Each structure stands twice: as C-alpha cells, then as structure tokens.
C-alpha cells in the first residue's frame, strides 16, 4: 500500500510526444482512473508507472521511493492487462502463483495463498485448468487473482473490462471496486469508458493528447469542468455548447439564444461586451413555458428516458474542431443541442417545445482558450 507520484513525466517516441509534463499524486488507497479518448496516452502513462516503458524525463515515486530507474519486477506492483495475458502453458494455479514463485516463496506457502485468492474470486474449481478452457469472465478473474495474490503496493489495470460483454462488465466493475475497497490497495485504472471512470473512481484524471486536462472526483468533473473538452467528454450525452455575446440587462449579465434573452450566472457580468461559449447539460434544460421555442429535429426514446434534438440558432454553434471530443464521440453534431428528459410524455419529431436554461446551470468558457470562467 502506497502513494504514487508522477513528477514532470515526459515520453516521446521519436518526434511523437505521447506524454507531456504529466504531474499527478495519488493517495494511499485511492482508486484513480485515467480516462480520455483513444491515443491520448493513458496506456503509455501506466506502462511507465509499471516500468515497462522508459520515461523520457521526469521521476516516478511509489510509496515515497523513487522507482524511475527500477525494472518492473522491483517496483512492487501488479498489473492486469486488457487481453489478460495469462500464461497459456500454465494451469490457473501456476498462473496465479507465478509471481510468488519468481520471488522465491516456498511451494506450500504459494499454494495456500493461491487457494485463498481463488476462494475470493470463486476460481477454486478451475485451479487445475489451462486458460484455454475458461470463459472470458473466468480468465479475467484469473488475471485479477494473479494481481491480488502478490499483495503489491499498487494495482495497475489497463482496460481490464473491455473484452467482456456489457452485462458481465457491469457486474465485474462492481466486483473490482469491492475488492479494491476490501484490500485497500492503491489502484491506477485505465479506461476510455467514462461510465467506468465515473462509477469506479475516487479520483479521475481526464487526459487528451498526452496532457492532463483535469483531476477530480466525478462530482467535481461534472459540476466544475475546467474546460470545454472535459465538459463535453464527461456526461452521456456530454454538455451542449453554443456561443453568444455577453450583455447587461438592468445590470444583470445575459446572452441571446436566437434573439431571446438568457440569464447568465452573476459572476459573468465582468465579461460584458465580449463573446463567450456557453454550456448546459442535456438533463438541465427545462421544458417549461418560456419565450424560447424550438422545433424537435429528432426524438430518441429509450423507454421513459428520451433524448430530444433541436437546432442551435444560426451563427451560434461551435465548429467541429472546437468541439472535438475524440474518436469515441464522432456522432456529435455541433449544429444540434440535446435535451434529456425522463417523463411519460410522448414527443413527436417536428413538434415545437419551449425551453428554459436555468441560470445556475449555465457554464461559461473562454472562446479562445476554452478554459472555464468563474
């Protein structure tokens, strides 16, 4: 059990900068999740922590000990891989015990520990099988067993659930969280699935292009995204954006949405006379009598939950490059805003609805730097 620290870590592959100035400190017992679009450098960061990839510059500490120059076997960490990487020529028992054997533990002690781990993961009946004869979920548990039996000071996991089907993924997600709580071992977990990040993490690190965008709890990321990227990436669907002028109406800051006044948070008053980007989450838009009327372009129904699409007034939408949330978010249409409603009402395409953007739910961003204001 230990803290984990990255200090000014950089990683280049030739001219490609995979990680730029990565600084992070993870507390003892934390469940820290790295999340971000494909290719943002999550796996690279994790591999450097494991010692499987050399750092270009910077230092890494585990439990206060500088491990930057140590090999993977000397860092006292255990790792779970996306494809599980079980040793195919060994039985489950040998797979789980391999790390202990390499550390010179006597056979009978290894056996006792392997049996304990197998009991926790309900693998007792499979100990003498080869990985080939296991289901995907069982293989995944063997990979977990291999990690926990070592009692390391940190667990490193790289998308360990992405090869499971949806139902098993949700179930295993909960099992991993419970296991981590019970063992109290500091865990660094990599995923590109924000639902996993939000549900599992005590600390989330949002990454993009090798840079940390924001570090926080799921609540912090949700309520106070530091920039447009985090706001659009976190949440499903992510935040809606539109641009508009900041004006003063009787001393109160307002913007215009298709000509109609929208009240802004009081702190925005200082921006009067400039343009800004405004964000509001799909679940925060209220359907109530108001001067803003829009026609629904598309209605997606998931039973009681519905996603209503409507068009952003001309000239107020962001460009595709401004709203780039990675390859996992290709279906985002910058011309549309979404409303997420849960009610029994039936909505029709083409129908007109009136909306309210609650003043305290509006996020304001700098159009040049994309940073949150206020």
């Amino acid at each position: 059990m230990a803290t984990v620290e990255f200090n000014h870590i950089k990683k280049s592959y030739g001219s490609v900068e995979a990680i730029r100035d990565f600084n992070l400190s993870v507390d003892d017992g934390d469940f820290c999740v790295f999340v971000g679009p494909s290719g943002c450098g999550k796996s690279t960061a994790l591999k450097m922590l494991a010692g499987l990839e050399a750092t270009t510059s910077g230092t890494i500490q585990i439990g206060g000990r500088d491990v930057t120059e140590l090999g993977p076997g000397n860092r006292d960490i255990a790792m779970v891989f996306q494809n599980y990487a079980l040793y195919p020529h060994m039985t489950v028992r040998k797979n789980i015990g391999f790390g202990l054997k390499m550390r010179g533990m006597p056979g009978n002690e290894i056996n006792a520990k392997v049996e304990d781990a197998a009991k926790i993961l309900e693998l007792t009946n499979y100990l003498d099988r080869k990985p080939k004869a296991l289901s995907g979920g069982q293989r995944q548990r063997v990979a977990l067993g291999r990690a926990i039996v070592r009692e390391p000071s940190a667990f490193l996991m790289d998308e360990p659930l992405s090869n499971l089907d949806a139902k098993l993924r949700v179930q295993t997600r909960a099992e991993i969280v419970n296991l981590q709580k019970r063992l109290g071992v500091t865990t660094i977990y990599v995923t590109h699935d924000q639902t996993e990040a939000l549900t599992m993490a005590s600390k989330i690190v949002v990454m993009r292009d090798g840079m940390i965008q924001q570090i926080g709890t799921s609540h912090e990321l949700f309520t106070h995204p530091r920039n447009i990227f985090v706001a659009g990436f976190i949440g499903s669907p992510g935040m809606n954006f539109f641009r508009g002028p900041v004006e003063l109406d009787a001393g109160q800051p307002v913007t215009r949405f298709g000509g109609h006044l929208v009240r802004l948070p009081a702190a925005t008053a200082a921006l009067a006379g400039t343009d800004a980007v405004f964000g509001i989450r799909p679940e925060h838009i209220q359907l109530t009598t108001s001067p803003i009327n829009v026609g629904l372009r598309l209605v997606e129904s998931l039973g009681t939950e519905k996603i209503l699409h409507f068009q952003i007034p001309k000239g107020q939408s962001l460009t595709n490059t401004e709203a780039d949330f990675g390859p996992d978010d290709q279906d985002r249409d910058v011309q549309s805003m979404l409303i997420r409603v849960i009610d029994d009402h039936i909505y029709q395409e083409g129908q007109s609805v009136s909306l309210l953007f609650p003043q305290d739910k509006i996020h304001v961003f700098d159009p040049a730097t994309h940073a949150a204001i206020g």
Partner: protein
Amino acid sequence: MQRSKLGQIGIYTAVIVTVVLLLFPIYWMTITALSPANQLRSFPPVFFPEEPQWGVFSELLATQPFALWLKNTILIAVATMILALSVSILAAYALSRYRLRGGATIGMFILTSKMLPATLLVIPFFAIFKQMGLVGSLWSVVITQSTLIVPFCTWMLKGYFDTIPEELEHAALVDGCSPFATIFRIVLPVAAPGLAATALYAFVISWSDFLFARTFLQTSESQWTLNMGIAALKGEYITDWNVIMAASLMASIPILLVFLVLERFLVGGLASGAEK
C-alpha cells in the same frame, strides 16, 4: 446434407491419393530390399516378393559398420540441431522484439545466404577447415550445416515469436521474471510448436547431408555417416540394390522416431487462450 456427403467423399479421395503417392516410394524401397537380387529387374514388376529375403538386414549389419555410421549421423544431427537452435532462438527473438534500425532489412539479408548454392561454399569451407585442422572431424559438418540452417531457422522462429503477444512478457516481467528468464519460461514454452517444427527441420536437413560429409570426412572412415556408407555400397560393376534399399530403410527409421517424439508439440495450439 447431400452436398456435405459428396464433399466428404471428395476429401477422403484426396487424402487417400496423397497418402498413396507419399507412401509408394517407401513401399517400393521395402519390396526392393526384400526381393532376391535376380528378381529386381523382372518385368512385369513383382509387387510382393514370393519369398521375402529377411536375411538382407542381418547380412548388412554383419558386413558393414552400420552402427558406427548411425552413431556419427546422430551426433552430427543432434549437435547441428542444438547449435543452430541456440543461435537462431536468440537471433529470432531480437529480430521479433527489438525495433532495430533496419531490422526488416537484416531479416531479409540473412535469408539471402540461403540462396547461395551449397556447392559454391564447399571449397572455401574446405580451405578453412584444412587450416583449422577440422577436416575429418564431425565438427566440420556440424558447423557447415549450422551456418546454412541458422538463417532459415531464425526466419521460421521469428514468425512464431511475432504471434506471441508482448503483454505476455510484460506480465512475466511485472511478476518478477528477468528479461532473459522470460524467454525460457514464457516465450519458448508458448512457441513450442514452432520450436518443434524448427528443430525437426534442422534435424532432417543435417541427417540427410551428403555433400559436406563426403567432402570433409571421406578420408577418415571412422567418421563416415549413414549416407556415405550407403553410397559406398554402390559397387563399381555390380550394385546390390536390395542391400542399398535395406540400408536406406534402416537409415530413415530414426527420422520417424524423432517425428513421433516431436509430433505432440507440433500439433499444439498453445498460444490460443493467452488472450481474452
């Protein structure tokens, strides 16, 4: 249903034809060995001799130093196999795992040595071995065969190593294995089918060598191999084909034995199951 039955018949026919074609030379060797000398050129050919001459084997063993030839051949084949594999395992691993500058070019380049005809190399090798005092030693054949076999073995093994996911080794490193130990504890066991195929290749090639043995060992009869011995059975005026075929049959038995031992590795599908 109808079609799959037809397909099955087709497959079986193809299998039977292939097997017959492959086994016919062995069958012909056997009946030639067992026929009396005066029946060998009869026409129409005799497909099974009326009185099989089993005595040909004991006569061969009694009159020729067959055991000595066998011993020399086994020594050469086993030593070549071990030497060639030790070198090519490490070379193939390096080519497969390390991003070397011009790695692909090196890979292709080592194969070009395979394109040179062996006869071209015999004379320079002879000159070198003469200086080193290796002419007449089994090592001369082991070294020559290894140099020719290593490039191809390296290429074969690289192909097998490439299919082993890198994460498997990463997992072993994290588990506390040293980089060198991961080769022996993880990579080689997982590549067992490939290793067996490569070993078999090295063994068979060096077992069937005639050119090098004939050049380097001709003058020292105690170092003769099976192929040299069999060749020497061919007389200047009369050739006892039944004796030669009997010797050839006995010479191919060890190859069959090696194949039987390696077979269970060859047919493995061990790598499946490493991943999800």
